[in-house]
């Protein structure tokens, strides 16, 4: 992953909160002093049951905000994998919600990260925060935003939320981040083989 | 005693005032105005009770009525 720019597509069913997830990442990037852009799926792409958005985090000025070749795809459901799997840049990352997506034969030139986001969210007592679990997980990989940035940004994103809600959001971040940490993904190397034959 | 005044430059000769005057003391004048209209005129001002029906009926607001103040 280039240290200068991260191009992300976030996709899932409507209602899984992928647009908000994108906004969380973009807003965090902005507060971390990066250039950012966020575009929701729009037009013909909207058909077919997936909602998605594109986010760019960059050290430099963002020319085109369109993401055609993502560095990272965060997929919350199966159709999103089908739709975006082939577009990921070689050497990029597919981070997917393994609660809803079965392990399968993916491309072997990308990094795979599986997060059982729904299960983690249910453990926390609120299935709606599965998206934020992914945000926490993403911060583990990002070179442009950190977990602390994410945490710092949260109160501004959920203005007027009750303390319990804020707490559960923070917990979701943390769980996602920790999940990646515990699994000890090998950063900087392509770990496609990790899943092969397991 | 009343005074009946018409602004002939506004009168279009439609005849509504003549038709509505309860005392029938209005008629067309026998001269043309510069605009080519035979205007309404009062034939017997002494009889006018200043009821102002003519003035109120005039679509061109051409008539003014005055009455002697006691």
């Amino acid at each position, binding site marked *: 992953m280039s240290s200068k720019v991260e191009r992300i597509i976030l996709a899932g069913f409507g209602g899984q909160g992928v647009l908000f997830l994108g906004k969380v990442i973009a807003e965090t990037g902005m507060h971390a002093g990066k250039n950012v852009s966020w575009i929701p799926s729009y037009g013909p792409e909207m058909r077919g049951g997936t909602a998605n958005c594109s986010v760019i985090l960059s050290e430099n000025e963002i020319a085109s905000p369109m993401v055609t070749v993502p560095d990272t795809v965060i997929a919350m459901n199966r159709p999103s994998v089908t739709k975006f799997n082939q577009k990921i840049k070689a050497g990029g990352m597919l981070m997917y919600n393994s609660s809803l997506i079965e392990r399968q034969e993916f491309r072997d030139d990308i990094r795979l990260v599986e997060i059982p986001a729904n299960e983690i969210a249910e453990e926390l007592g609120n299935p709606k925060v599965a998206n934020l679990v992914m945000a926490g997980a993403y911060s583990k990989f990002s070179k442009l935003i950190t977990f602390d940035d994410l945490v710092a940004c949260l109160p501004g994103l959920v203005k007027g939320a009750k303390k319990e809600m804020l707490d559960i959001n923070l917990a979701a971040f943390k769980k996602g981040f920790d999940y990646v940490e515990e699994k000890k993904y090998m950063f900087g190397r392509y770990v496609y083989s990790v899943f092969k034959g397991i | 005693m009343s005074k009946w005044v018409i602004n002939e430059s506004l009168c279009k000769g439609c005849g509504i005032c003549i038709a509505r005057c309860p005392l029938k003391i209005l008629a067309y004048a026998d001269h*043309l105005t510069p605009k*080519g209209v*035979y205007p309404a005129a009062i034939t017997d001002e002494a009889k006018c009770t200043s009821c102002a029906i003519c003035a109120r009926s005039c679509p061109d607001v051409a008539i003014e009525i005055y009455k002697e103040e006691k």
Partner: protein
Amino acid sequence: MNLPFSSDAAPATFLIGGAGAGKTELALNLSVFKSSRYGGSTLIDLDIVNPFFRVRKLREEVEALGVKVICPGDRVVSGDIPALPPAAWGALEAPGQAVVCDIGGGEPGLRPLGRMKDIAAARGANVFFVINPFRPGFTSPGELAESFRHMCGLSAMQVTHLVANPNLSGETSVELFREGLAMVQDFAGKTGLPLAFAVVASELAGKLGVAIEGLPGFYSSGDLDVFVLERYWSVPWHFGVVR
């Protein structure tokens, strides 16, 4: 020598007829003719229908020829506002100059005449029904009769004469003129209304054997009175241009 049309001296002439019958051109010519013959005339523009064919467009040109033009106020001259000029009533009432009234084409143009029928009757006005048998709605004896009946009903005025204006604009030939004229003559016979005269464009007059001394004017062609037109109004996109 101009042959005066016998009823020409009537103090007021109303021209009615279908849209495009040639009323406005005839009204212009008649008023110019009357102006030269009687030392002045008045042309009243009562057209509330089509702003593109109103005599007011040619006001300055005909006024230079001694015709007093009465038309709605200056501010509505280019507007689609059917305001009638109040001076029209004054002009019809006033004794003196000959008055020609141009009425807008088609049925709606006839409606305002309802406001004038009494004054027209009191003045013994000529009411000319102008027929161009080459206009839609007038091309067969049946159609012509139906249109005539219908329009007379709307105009509320008693038609006193027919006027034949058989033309296909620039394509009018002698044969065509005679063919159309015959139809109007036939119609005049059926209705018992006199055919006052036929309208002839100056270009055609020579071919019909009319010796012209001055335009516009009344001439005789055999047993027919013809009124030969000066073309003031050639085509609407040339309006305002007088030769």
